């Protein structure tokens, strides 16, 4: 662990940017058509529960990253294996995000540019940032967050002014009942983007005011959930169900429909800005967790030194992870959620929390016994005075 401290406000912004990062761009929960926003909101509530689990683990070991407290909970051998699996998971996720991003740029703007070049540039930027440390990342996020908010507000204004929102597109609500919505929540939105917050348990130990972790995290998840849901609702109401199910990047299509005063049109640059900044932060957080986790697990003193080799690994992994985009998407939707997200984001953390709870209860009762005579003595002292 490097010697760094980040503030509660910085953590809030990091979580929000991380959540919005890629979820804002892709067709999230589009299986349930016009009810996508509802699936996102339910996923957000699930995200609250998951965050409480991660926070529970954090509150037992406030100074340790997960790679270390897993070893304390599970014992050295099993713990090391599990921690290693988590580090691999983080590395894999950063490669996935990178691939998503490269494919998106190719589909939307750079038909002729090789994926490798686009990804390389991004990885170099991320490596540079991570070598500077978590404090620099947090400060950067503060500045770029303002830019994102300004972009968002102006885009919303333009959409409203150009009069392309048709609320009737959102009806009928719950056309096929609540069942498909719940199903989508538990197969998709719960894990992506909300369950991915597990990555922040690597960053929580850096917070300068630990008592605020719970509130800030829940606020950030709530805030980003609301933004995601409203953006999805706007997308649906602008494009209509028919168009949105066919669009690979609904937000891009929405922005392209903007036309104000016959002059402001084709504002694709909004989308590029949003996507590059969002993906940049998502990549950075994933990559930072991978680097710090690896350094922690293998006792590397200067974690910044790992940035280059790991970055190279992620770059190559992002190219070789799937042979084409549709394979990549299919893996992401059906295989990853079931075999990676579900156990690593939900089941194992809950188990860990249970074990930690039992362990600490034992310790606490022992502790209390030892403490009791002292307390009696102190009380007696106070009575005397």
């Amino acid at each position, binding site marked *: 662990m490097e010697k760094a401290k980040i503030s509660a406000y*910085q953590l809030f912004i990091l979580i929000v940017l991380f959540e919005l990062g890629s979820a804002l761009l892709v067709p999230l929960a589009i299986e349930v058509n016009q009810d996508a926003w509802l699936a996102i909101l339910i996923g957000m509530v699930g995200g609250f529960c998951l965050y409480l689990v991660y926070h529970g683990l954090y509150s037992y070991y406030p100074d340790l990253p997960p790679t270390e407290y897993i070893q304390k909970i599970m014992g050295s051998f099993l713990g090391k294996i599990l921690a290693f699996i988590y580090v691999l998971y983080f590395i894999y996720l950063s490669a996935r995000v990178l691939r998503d991003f490269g494919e998106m740029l190719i589909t939307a703007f750079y038909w002729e540019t090789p994926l490798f070049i686009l990804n390389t540039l991004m990885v170099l*930027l991320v490596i540079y940032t991570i070598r500077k440390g978590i404090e620099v990342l947090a*400060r950067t996020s503060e500045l770029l967050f303002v830019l994102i908010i300004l972009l968002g507000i102006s885009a919303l204004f333009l959409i409203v002014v150009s009069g392309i929102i048709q609320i009737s597109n959102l009806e009928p609500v719950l056309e096929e009942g609540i069942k498909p919505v719940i199903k989508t929540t538990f197969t998709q939105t719960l894990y992506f983007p909300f369950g991915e917050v597990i990555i922040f348990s690597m960053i929580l130990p850096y917070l300068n005011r630990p008592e605020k972790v719970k509130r800030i995290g829940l606020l950030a998840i709530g805030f980003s959930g609301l933004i995601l849901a409203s953006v999805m609702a706007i997308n649906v109401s602008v494009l209509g169900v028919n168009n949105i199910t066919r669009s690979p990047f609904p937000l891009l299509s929405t922005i392209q429909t903007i036309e104000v005063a016959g*002059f402001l049109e084709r504002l694709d640059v909004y989308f590029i800005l949003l996507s590059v900044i969002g993906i940049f932060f998502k990549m950075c957080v994933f990559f930072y967790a991978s680097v710090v986790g690896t350094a922690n697990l293998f006792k590397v003193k200067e974690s910044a030194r790992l940035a280059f080799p790991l970055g190279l690994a992620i770059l190559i992994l992002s190219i070789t992870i799937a042979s084409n985009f549709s394979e990549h998407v299919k893996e992401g939707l059906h295989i990853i959620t079931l075999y990676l997200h579900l156990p690593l984001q939900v089941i194992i953390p809950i188990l860990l929390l249970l074990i930690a709870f039992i362990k600490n209860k034992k310790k606490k009762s022992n502790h209390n016994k030892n403490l009791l005579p002292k307390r009696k003595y102190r009380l007696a002292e106070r009575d005397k005075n």
Partner: protein
Amino acid sequence: MFSFLKRKKQKNDRKIQELNNQNQTNKTLPNLIEKSLSKNLEVIKQKTGNSSDIVIRQLKICHNSKMKIAILYVKGMVDNQSVNDFVIESIINNQNLSEKLKPQDVLEVLTEDVVAVGGIKVVNDWEKLFTALMSGETITLIDGLSKGICASTQGGQRRSVQESTTNVSIRGSKEAFNESIETNTAMVRRIINNTDLWVESINIGKMTKTEVSIMYINGIAKNEIIEEVRKRLKGISIDGILESGYIEQLIEDQTNTTFPTIHHTERPDSVAGNLLEGKIAIFVNGTPFVLLVPALFIDFFQSVEDYYERFDISTAIRFLRTVIFLISLVGPAIYIAATTFHQEMIPTELAIIIAAQRESVPFPAFIEALIMEITFEILREASIRMPKAMGSTISIVGALVIGQAAIQAGIVSPGMVIVVSLTAIASFATPSYAVAITARLVRFIFMVGAATFGFYGIILVFILLIVHLCSLRSFGVPYMSPLAPFIREEAGDTIFRRPIWAYKKRPRLISGQNRVSQGENQKPQPPGTRVMKNTTNMEKGDQNES
């Protein structure tokens, strides 16, 4: 492995050491001043190489003119009037002196009675004597006494206090610093009349022995930062300090950056304002530019005048400056990206106009921009370096030949000329030259990004720039504060300029414990009626006015 190489190296080292030792033995003087005047003068002549600008005036005084004394000073370094009137003349005319016989008595009379100059000290070793002589003091040596009297008669021709040429403002004090460190520190002291304004001086430079002073307000400036400044200054070991730029480059936090992490200014009111915020000023003798540390990024976008105008106007101007800086950074880059990669984003009519203009141009937009940018940089450099009389020639060549003719010849498109000139004007409008020159460099990186990857390239370079800026520190203070890390109560003085009465506290990261800078309720509260705020007997005003 290469032991023979090592041995050779050791030999070389030894040789160098021996040489050094020889040099040192040559240099060493008899440490203390001797009694005999002629011997002393001999030493001085030998040491200074009999330099022609050192004046040695020998006098005979006392009873029957038996006692010899010598007066020495450096021509031009001293104030002639004070040397003639208060040293030489008063020694010659003094009655008391003629009665004395012993050299010791003469010394006493000279220091206590005769020499009518403010600062006087008696020294007995050569080094101090030479430092005094070379800094413009007048030395008096007495035959038979191993001591010298130094009278501070520094003076000579200096540039007078003039208007600032680099930090121009419409409202506010007109005077700017000049080359003399005493004048400069005095100018600041004239603004802050307080005993807590502390000045510390050291001499830096083995050859030049330049006087460098740090100035701060005790109780406002943070002690750790003062200590850090002291340490860094003391660590400097260099032949000469010719300008404050030397100091700046030797004490800055990070060298691998094009962004300045130390601020410099020519204006005393700017220094005073920064001192009141808890910053530390570094004065260097021989230059009007005073360094201010720690410097934040936003400092380079503010001028003192912002605080003299009312807040709404200043805020508007600061917004304008932000826009200006962005234009000077990414202006040409956006043009390149839009015309090369993202034509669909330009409104149709405009796109047709641009395409028509570019039809005859044989270069891609990037090369076109590069040609114009480099031409402009050449023009700018030429107009700074060349004699002023040639100015009109350059403007004719620049405007007509390069602007007009290049378009007519079909080498560049008119649109590009507009973009490049707008960028050029924008880079002149940035208040600080130090940051404007940085923007000039970074602009080319943005252009390369735009030429290779369009907006994706621009945004990548932009993020890189922000990450880089966020990683900088100036004397331990994050460079981008109070924006990142965001400090709510100080963010009002960044691209906004809140009203003066809302400045409750000094910057947290810069100043120490004592942070309250003004009393409560400083906001002027206009009375509801025509009653004056502080007097009640104005109510009659109603009748008098009509």
